[in-house]
């Protein structure tokens, strides 16, 4: 197989492929795709190994431990699959390499700082909205969920609103 890190699938074909993956999740499992829910469960599991009493006392955290281990959930296994699929995809496309992706005008350290800061914002937003780009926009959008379509509009609105301010990170 010819590995060319700059060759991607045609976006329309990729969209249809992603749609079929989502459709199979609906049809086979009766569930949608997700990511941030699994992140939260992984986080709670980590906190639980360090400070179990804190999890039990925190109303925002013990919700996912009430039914057993926070990791015993469809989302966590699906998340594991995403990681494996990403790894195999990156290996076979020649995009598996240690690097920091950034624009030409920012240092690697600066980029990592923005990455962590933006990600924390995203984690908070995903908890408030009960889902992220996968769980709300994709999975809810595909079955015409009203809240998901509102999320999708706000998601693009938020990204376009901030794009100008962080242009030095990328351009």
């Amino acid at each position, binding site marked *: 197989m010819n590995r060319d890190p700059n060759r*991607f699938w*045609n976006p329309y074909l*990729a*969209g*249809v492929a992603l*749609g*079929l*993956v*989502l459709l199979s999740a*609906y*049809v086979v*499992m*009766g*569930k*949608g*795709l997700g990511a*941030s*829910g699994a992140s939260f469960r992984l*986080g*709670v599991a980590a906190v639980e190994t360090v400070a179990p009493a804190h999890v039990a006392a925190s109303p925002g955290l013990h919700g996912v431990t009430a039914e057993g281990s926070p990791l015993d959930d469809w989302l966590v*296994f*699906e998340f594991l*699959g*995403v*990681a*494996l*699929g*990403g790894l*195999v*995809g*990156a290996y076979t496309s020649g995009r*598996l390499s240690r*690097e920091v*992706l950034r624009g030409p005008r920012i240092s*690697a350290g600066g980029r*990592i700082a923005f*990455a*962590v*800061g*933006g*990600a*924390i*914002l*995203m*984690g908070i*937003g995903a908890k408030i*909205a*009960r889902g992220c*780009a*996968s*769980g709300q*926009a994709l999975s809810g959008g595909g079955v*015409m*969920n009203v809240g998901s379509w509102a999320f999708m509009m*706000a*998601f693009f*609105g*938020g*990204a*376009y609103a901030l794009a100008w301010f962080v242009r030095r990170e990328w351009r």
Partner: protein
Amino acid sequence: MIFPFESLSGSQRELGLVVAVLIGFGFGFVLERAGFGRANKLVAQFYGNDMAVLKVMFGAVVTAMIGMVVLDGFGLVDMRAVANTATSATFIWPAIAGGFLVGAGFVISGYCPGTSVVAAMSGKLDGIAVVVGVVIGTLVWGELSSVKALADFADSGYLGQIYLYDVLGIPAAVIALFVAAVAIGAFLGAEKLERIIAKDGAPPSPATPKRLVFAGLGAFALVGAATLALPSAPGAKPSAPAAISAGDLARRVLDEPWKVRVLDVRPMEACAQARVPGAECTPPGTLKDLFLADVSAARDLVVVGEGALAELPPEIRAYRGRVFALEEGFAGWKAWALTPPAPPPAGASAEARAEYGLRAGIHSALTGTKAPPPPPAPAAGAAPVKRKAGGGGCSG
């Protein structure tokens, strides 16, 4: 309905988790191949020179939507039932505020929570930073939600499990056709923008797959719309109405009366004498005045007859939301709720004791008489409150 396979969430749960890994694998692999493991490719969407995010995301939403509409049209899947288990109820204000935050975080961090996993696995250090940051962010909100004002906001704007076809009042298949048309228009507009903005020449978009995809989406959307003309049209309710037990109805009437509307279709005199709390007396002749086909479908309807209802009146079948018939009708309700329950024997199971507590509570609430307390428990500790299992994609 053939799908989804309920057993994968129940008795065959281990197999279901294997399927979860496989579906996740497909998700991750496609994201990687689309180039979504690379921050630069993702954020290019917001600077206009490569709108792959719009094309892939919108394309996926439309594909899945049309697939559901077609399968629903042929009676293989119940689109609303799947949506009710696969997605979260709508809380409109948190959805908008959270969506804005996720969008802002996306352009700052370069990834969304899903694509960051792919980036991290491709060795991108910024991707690893985002994976860690998202975990921290969700935990931060987990802690912050002990602040009452914030927790109240997260639960504001509740609209229930509500879908575009409820709001617009037109069939899902027609909406899917319209969304497909909008998507194709947006794709063509995006390509035009790319040509204008990209200085070093837009990434070439081969015409063949594009035409193929557009034609395929259009064709399947038309098939979906055509299923509306089938004799067993989508949305046609099964002949026997879904049943709700007296216990479940009592719980719903007492806990969340704003989410149910109880219609008593017995003769007016019988209903006037005694009825389920909050029920409206609507003998069959008066049903047409309720315009059930046109009113909001947000609340579930519960229909109460004298006994079990074999068939629902056509005016009620026209309702667009969920409809239940009370099992064994008012006679069953009287036996369940208006007769004092027998206390469980000492040493009864926790469930039996909880059941008795509930029935006794409902009985005393409805009749004004207090039931005797249950015998002392063999072991302390209340039964844990069961949360909605599964839940929405990211909602865990």
